[in-house]
């Protein structure tokens, strides 16, 4: 096809020694090409690396790694606590709920970089004029963000586990610990998947980085404040009461009624927390979220439905011709 062009000759490829800069003319590329799946994988890796600030400037690494350090601090503290006093600092299945703030901060910082940047710079037409299908791009991006989030959620859980079994003796104790660990790990996955999908959807509607950051932060914080306030306003009383002299006492949890249960659905973290209480069959003693009983099935259904809807909207967003 281009026999009359390259002075380097067709097909010489890598045989040409380099090192001296000449104008060697145009060389065609006859080497292998990765297929569409390979490209999706390349985009996934590229996005995953940028989610941790790798391949970007040093400033881009600050937030992700600071978030990871903060997330891991309780696990490290727990290791000391368990080895010295035998008292566990934090439970596996309360870890993510207690530190959702850090997860949201991470997402607010990273999602705009992954999603809004290509919208803002109008780079998307360059992707879509290549082999990628319209759905490949958001799928690669959301997968990368989920994986990045897993690093932020699963690593602390793992550290917590390792730190604890270091002080456990005997197979039965380790086994007991391991059985407690797996629900925590599963929760890390649930948090990563749902938070990442929702944050991606929020960011894909704007090319402005600040707006995307704001949308993610306001959505997770705002709904959390509203949901938690409504849980209490609709009649939920915590099981743990603080006394005036610093002591406290537990009251027997009664049925909180439907109001607090529904209020708990208004925020992803509260929803997941309620779902977890339903699945493990008990609420933590100082829980802010009422034990939902059979209503937990609704929590699960709403969570799955919400994520499915978000994915659908995300895919639809990238079908739009106006992105070209």
């Amino acid at each position, binding site marked *: 096809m281009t026999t009359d062009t390259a002075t380097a000759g067709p097909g010489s490829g890598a045989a040409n020694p380099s090192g001296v800069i000449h104008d060697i003319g145009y060389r065609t590329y*006859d080497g292998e090409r*990765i297929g569409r799946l390979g490209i999706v994988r390349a985009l996934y890796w*590229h996005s995953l690396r940028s989610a941790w600030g790798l391949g*970007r400037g040093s400033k881009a690494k600050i937030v992700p790694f600071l978030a990871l350090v903060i997330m891991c601090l309780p696990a490290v503290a727990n290791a000391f606590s368990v080895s010295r006093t035998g008292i566990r600092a934090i439970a596996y299945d309360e870890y993510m709920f207690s530190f959702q703030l850090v997860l949201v901060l991470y997402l607010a910082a990273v999602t705009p970089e992954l999603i809004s940047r290509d919208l803002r710079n109008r*780079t998307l037409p*360059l992707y879509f*004029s290549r082999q990628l299908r319209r759905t490949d791009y958001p799928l690669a991006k959301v997968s990368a963000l989920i994986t990045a989030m897993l690093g932020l959620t699963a690593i602390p859980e793992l550290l917590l586990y390792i730190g604890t079994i270091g002080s456990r003796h005997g197979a039965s104790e380790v086994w007991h610990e391991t059985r407690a660990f797996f629900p925590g790990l599963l929760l890390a996955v649930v948090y990563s998947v749902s938070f990442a999908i929702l944050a991606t959807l929020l960011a894909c509607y704007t090319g402005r980085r600040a707006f995307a950051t704001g949308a993610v932060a306001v959505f997770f914080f705002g709904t959390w404040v509203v949901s938690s306030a409504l849980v209490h306003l609709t009649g939920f009383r915590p099981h743990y009461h603080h006394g005036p002299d610093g002591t406290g006492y537990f009251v027997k949890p009664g049925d909180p009624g439907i109001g607090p249960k529904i209020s708990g659905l208004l925020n992803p973290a509260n929803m997941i927390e309620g779902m977890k209480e339903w699945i493990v069959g008990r609420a933590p003693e100082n829980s802010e979220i009422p034990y939902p009983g059979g209503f937990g099935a609704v929590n699960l259904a709403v969570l799955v439905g919400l994520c499915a809807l978000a994915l659908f909207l995300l895919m639809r967003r990238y079908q739009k011709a106006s992105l*070209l």
Partner: protein
Amino acid sequence: MTTATTPTADAAVPAAGPGGAVIEASGLTKRYAGASRGTVTALDGLTLSVPAGVIGLVGANGAGKSTLIKILLGLLAPSSGSAAVLGYDVVDQAQRIRTLVGYMPEHDCLPPDVTATEFVTHMGRMGGLPPTAAKERAAESLRHVGLHEERYRLIGTYSTGMKQRVKLAQALVGDPRLMLLDEPTNGLDPAGREAMLDLIERIGAEFGISILVASHLLGEIEQICDSLVAIDAGKLLRAASMSAFTKASAVLAVEVDEGSAQLGAALKAAGLEPRRDGRALLVRLGTSEEESDRVYDAIRDAVADLGLPLNRLERRRHRVEELFADEAFDEFERAYGAAGGAAESSVSAPAADSTSGDPDRSTESTDSDPGTTGSETADDH
């Protein structure tokens, strides 16, 4: 990430041979169902077949150039009709087409916070190149478009001309068989335009890559094109090889300081069909030598008889507005006949807005000798 590599070198073989059509369309129509403005027809029954080489796609802004390119890339689905690129159907085999085509959009599409090398490498990866090959080809592409040491700088620090080069490089990085360039000279100064056009011509001639160049300035891309497709309001005006365009009829521009109205009347009386274009009168040269001579003589006589100060007499190639020539000449006649010499009645073709940005029009010499100007501009191709 390298495990899924599949050798698809066979995909790079164009289905259309060197003699075959690179782009074909038949009855290609695209309508947008606008919510507020009703249905907009962007392309209207476009039928064409263009051979390999550098192809000019000319039309005014909004004529449907970008829509056509996006349909050819398979990014937009045609409302009706069909099109094929390199022998592949744009609807059924869009993905195959996109492995063989490089696209340079009209608008800005570069992230400012990465270096050109990083960006073009990434785009090479997204085009299906393995990591090492992507790096090598990115460096080569950037070198071909004339970015050397600058390629390690952040794109945000680049001038418009350099950004256009990066856009071109990312289209080139995957070693395409066809490049679709949407207004590549947009926003460039005259020197930058020249450089960009030279580059495109070189890619077409030396690299053996077919190129479709969209522009609203025919005067600009006619220098580098092998064939030309002119569209207006979504309809095909003409699609032909460049030589067919120039052979059809060259045009002579006559410019006088004053009295262009009388000159027009005199030329009409001499049996010619003058047409106003800005300050100049355009007169068709015949296809044969004798006819041209007759036209030159008629003009010389008319100018001499009226004693007008002749400013310029030059031979021009077709420009966008001249593709509308028939209507335009008629219009001139009407306007002329009615006003009886309204000198400033500006009659121009629908796409005449292109004259404002035409670089070589103003740099043309004002030599009044018809012989030298004629040969000077006649065969620069």
